[in-house]
């Protein structure tokens, strides 16, 4: 039996109030805040800097909600309610640490920043967010779209009481078992989006950004989407690579920069493909042929998709395909509040595109062929199904629209409109949602369903090749990657097998990364450097003793010459020496080497000590200075001067011995 639950426009997000005791510096810790391997949220503590790596919003839990229809739907409102079948909830964010202590957030691509307003707003966050320009602009569009989808649907009422623990207990099925639903949050507002995005500082690939002088971070092209990046987090002696959502396939973005990942101490690996068994090229072919088949039969094609990303490749593919498939007259519609912006923005990021597209800009021509599709009226874009679209709409047609979860956005309307006819086809291309769950509330459904998930991110084969290439000392990854998928437990090729084995993490886990920090950079000022006297101690190795004053400022250390002490005014009262505490003077250098007997005897002679009786012992010699009644024991690793109360003699002997030894 299905249970009734209508939750309007309430979207997930997870925040718990548990805080974690502060962690000492000089250690590298990694906190994992998200269990979703493709929507990561990790926090790295490195040299007293707290760095959040991505903040993806896991929207799979919207599958627990009823679709939000744009047009009043008698069917949906009569539906006895629906909840997802398996009821598992990928909960998004659990807080192990105080968000206000986060110094910086590094964003790797626009899909991984959707939770940004939840982190930066109303939490006391005062840090900086770093992202590339395409990531910021397209991320803004996606957030704007999400807000728009939520806000344009008038909500009759919004329930919040159900989040109360007592009431939740009474709720049916999977919701009852859902963990921490009280931390699910409402969708953010545009105002919050703008405020959050105003904290973003733009960076370019390979730009070196200094954080507090302690750490340097730098984004690298990851090849997955426009402006997508992996990050290098390093100091002079340690290097952490954060690999998230990377692709080695030739699609529109700039190719992945692999060589800069070399020599990493730790490589954090997230965002692998969610469809390890689906070949993107094959899926693209299937997409095209199913599309053509439906159109030829007089049906419509619905493609639920995000407004940026794979859609550019789909359009490019169709651009080449429609002539040959004789679809020249079929209208293509792209409906989203940000459709126009997304198409326009894609054309202006030449610097972030693959070489092929870059050279088009030099001609100058728009890098993406969808410009031509728009010019020739084959592709039309509309902000929503209302307005111009309703009057210009012709069937059969192809519609690209969101949201891929089928729970909100214009896609809901098309499901209602086309679901009843078996002529129509819905083609799923986004891998983020289970298509069966997505379709559940629309059942029974007559329209054809085709599942062609296109996920260009790294698969396990590519990852192991990559790791062989860049050879990190340690690999850290979500635990899901260390075992085969539950449904295909025999496929040992669908997991990471590495030597040494990767360090797995799960949601809310805290890892102590295997780092041994041993060195730090310090700068010797020119004046001091000139005063150093190096001496060669072994061929090719020289030593110099350094006495200097250490200045540490903004995590930068410099060594300066010791200033000459100011002349002490002679004090009138002499304190009794005996009461004076020990004065800390320059410590004596360490000695090394051995005193050669013959040379030492010669030197003694030069200083007027002639009556020396030498006696050989097991470890060296004992010199008896007969006139002075003094013994000098010379050994490989030591010299012992036994001399009774004769301070001047002792000093002389000491200096003579020191001449033969190396001082460190």
């Amino acid at each position, binding site marked *: 039996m299905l249970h009734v639950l209508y939750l309007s426009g309430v979207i997930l997000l997870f925040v718990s109030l548990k805080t974690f005791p502060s962690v000492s510096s000089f250690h590298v810790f990694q906190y994992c805040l998200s269990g979703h391997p493709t929507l990561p949220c990790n926090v790295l503590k490195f040299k007293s800097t707290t760095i959040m790596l991505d903040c993806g919003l896991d929207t799979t839990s919207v599958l627990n909600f009823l679709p939000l229809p744009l047009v009043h739907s008698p069917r949906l409102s009569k539906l006895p309610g629906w909840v997802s079948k398996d009821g598992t909830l990928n909960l998004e964010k659990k807080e192990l640490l105080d968000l206000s202590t986060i110094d910086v957030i590094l964003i790797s691509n626009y899909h991984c920043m959707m939770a940004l307003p939840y982190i930066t707003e109303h939490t006391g966050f005062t840090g900086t967010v770093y992202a590339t320009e395409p990531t910021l602009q397209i991320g803004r569009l996606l957030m704007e779209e999400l807000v728009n989808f939520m806000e344009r649907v008038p909500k009759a009422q919004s329930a919040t009481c159900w989040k109360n623990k007592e009431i939740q207990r009474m709720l049916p099925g999977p919701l009852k078992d859902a963990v921490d639903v009280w931390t699910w949050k409402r969708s953010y507002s545009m105002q919050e989006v703008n405020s959050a995005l105003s904290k973003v500082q733009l960076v370019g690939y390979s730009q070196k950004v200094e954080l507090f002088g302690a750490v340097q971070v730098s984004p690298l092209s990851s090849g997955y989407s426009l402006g997508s990046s992996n990050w290098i987090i390093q100091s002079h002696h340690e290097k952490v690579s954060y690999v998230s959502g990377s692709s080695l396939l030739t699609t529109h973005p700039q190719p992945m920069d692999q060589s800069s990942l070399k020599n990493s101490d730790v490589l954090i690996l997230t965002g692998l493909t969610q469809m390890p068994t689906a070949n993107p090229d094959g899926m693209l072919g299937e997409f095209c042929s199913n599309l053509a088949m439906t159109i030829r039969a007089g049906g419509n094609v619905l493609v639920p998709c995000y407004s940026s990303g794979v859609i550019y490749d789909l359009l490019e593919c169709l651009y080449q395909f429609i002539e040959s498939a004789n679809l020249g007259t079929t209208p293509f519609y792209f409906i989203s509040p940000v459709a126009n912006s997304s198409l326009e923005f894609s054309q202006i990021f030449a610097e972030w595109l693959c070489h092929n597209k870059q050279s088009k800009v030099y001609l100058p021509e728009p*890098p993406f062929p969808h410009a031509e599709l728009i010019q020739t009226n084959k592709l039309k874009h509309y902000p929503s199904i209302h307005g111009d679209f309703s009057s210009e709409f012709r069937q059969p047609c192809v519609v690209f629209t969101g949201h891929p979860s089928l729970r909100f956005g214009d896609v809901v309307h098309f499901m209602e409109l086309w679901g009843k006819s078996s002529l129509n086809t819905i083609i799923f291309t986004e891998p983020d949602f289970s298509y069966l769950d997505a379709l559940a509330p629309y059942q029974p459904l007559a329209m054809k369903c085709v599942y062609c998930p296109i996920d260009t991110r790294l698969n396990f084969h590519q990852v192991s090749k990559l790791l062989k290439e860049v050879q990190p000392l340690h690999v850290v990854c979500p635990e899901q990657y260390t075992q085969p998928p539950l449904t295909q437990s025999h496929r040992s090729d669908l997991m990471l097998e590495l030597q040494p084995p990767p360090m797995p993490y799960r949601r809310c886990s805290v890892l102590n990364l295997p780092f041994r920090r041993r060195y730090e950079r310090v700068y010797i000022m020119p004046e001091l450097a000139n005063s150093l006297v190096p001496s060669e101690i072994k061929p090719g190795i020289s030593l110099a003793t350094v*006495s200097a004053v*250490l200045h540490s400022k903004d995590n930068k250390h410099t060594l300066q010459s010791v200033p000459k002490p100011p002349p002490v005014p002679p004090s009138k009262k002499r304190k009794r020496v005996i009461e004076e505490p*020990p004065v800390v003077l320059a410590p*004596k250098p360490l000695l090394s080497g051995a005193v050669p007997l013959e040379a030492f005897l010669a030197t003694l002679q030069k200083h007027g000590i002639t009556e020396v009786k030498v006696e050989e012992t097991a470890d060296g010699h004992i010199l008896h200075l007969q006139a002075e009644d003094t013994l000098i024991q010379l050994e490989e690793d030591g010299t012992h001067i036994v001399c009774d109360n004769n301070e001047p003699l002792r000093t002389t002997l000491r200096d003579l011995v020191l001449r033969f030894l190396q001082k460190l």
Partner: protein
Amino acid sequence: RSCILVSIGGKNIMLDCGMHMGYNDDRRFPDFSYITQNGRLTDFLDCVIISHFHLDHCGALPFMSEMVGYDGPIYMTHPTKAICPILLEDFRKITVDKKGETNFFTSQMIKDCMKKVVPLNLHQTVQVDDELEIKAYYAGHVLGAAMVHIKVGSESVVYTGDYNMTPDRHLGAAWIDKCRPDILISESTYATTIRDSKRCRERDFLKKVHESIERGGKVLIPVFALGRAQELCILLETFWERMNLKAPIYFSTGLTEKANHYYKLFITWTNQKIRKTFVQRNMFEFKHIKAFDRSYADNPGPMVVFATPGMLHAGQSLQIFKKWAGNEKNMVIMPGYCVQGTIGHKILNGQRKLEMEGRSTLDVKLQVEYMSFSAHADAKGIMQLIRMAEPRNMLLVHGEAVKMEFLKGKIEQEFSIDCYMPANGETVTVTTNPSVPVDISLNLLKREMALGGPLPDPKKPRTMHGTLIMKENSLKLVSSEQALKELGLNEHQLRFTCRVQLQDPHSDTDTLHRIYTHLKSVLKGYTIQHLPDGTVMVESIVIKVSSSTEDPNTKVLLLSWSYQKVNKEATSSKILQQGTDSSPNHYLRKCL
């Protein structure tokens, strides 16, 4: 024109490779024999960096790379890489195809030259080789103009190219972080001018154009195809719209359409306002400005024509100028700087009779106006950039000597840094004083920082001691103990022992204990321990007692200390003197 060679930390970099518009002979290209007399430059240059697409900054590039010979990397931004070959080709056409000159680069050479170009993104740190890194900053001036920061080790140079510190209608202002270069090489085209406010200049310009149109005159505005042209187009477009004017505005053909397309595709390089609104309305789609055709020049009635090139030295602008020069109702507005020797320069200097090719002369009757719309930094802007970057030395290029002299004085006075202004072919040497980067062992650093306390005390600086190990290219600073360990050396112990005899009838243990108690009372502030192995330690001085073999009442006191451990030999002798040695009898008496 600009072409600067920088040698820094053993690397040689060529900054810009410009040509001189005023010459038609060998002098138009830089004299590369300055670098090497024979042959190719590849071995002598590590890289070439082009700041922007103006020909006085990149015009000699194909000549240098293809005719003189250079195969190394050439760095420029994406827009520069896109636009530069078009301007070069355009320029080549004018010189070779129209003037019939030989000994000039060919189209193929331009293509081959561009293949050597590596595109540069803003703020991206490009590692040219292991030691040399460069980073580009936004410079305003024209689309894609960049300043570059060049760094080798701890030495660095910033080269500004041409830049503009005030945002205009289509570009943003130059910006650089506080990178504290050893030398800042800045252009100084407007070294003394503090230009009046931009709005005044624009109003002036519009007024002049308007007046001329009103009395039925034709207005010629010679411009570069890209850069000021777009700025003035935006200005006139909005004015026409507001005043509802009907007179046609033309833009000389060829480059126009293309040029505007570049602006649309590289919209990220324009100013914030244009970037924000480009989806709704692209500023580079003009309503009132149409493409020009040669025949329009003879049309009756008023019109405004933008024509290239900007200095009236050749091409369409010169043709139109010749046609219109005889009529005093017409006007030519020079919106930018003109190089000596060009017609633009001549008419700006008031010359009214021009000698043209083929001995003909041309009477200039039309109005000549100069309006500085070049987006160069003025004196105020240059000072502002110095404040931003905080260089240790300043070098002025690309300007007129007298004006530069004045600015030099001002810079030296205000910032107390050295300022140089080398003439063409002159070399300036600036000595830097770099600090030496060293890897300090974290143990040593942490120990030192813990001892130093959270805040340094300027009055009592703590002295840190360590050993610097120099091995191959690495410099490591470690504690002396660690240095010994790392080098596999044994420590050499230097110890001293001193004997003191006492008369004391007690047993050895008792004597030792009595010594211990006594020392404790006498030596305050010292650590004194009685150890179970029958020794007393004063700090690290070991005291042992043994009886003489002959006389059990004669006790021998052995004081032993190490050279390193006892920081103060003074201490040990003090103990000797105060406690025991100076008056054993006294001591003995006390003990007993």
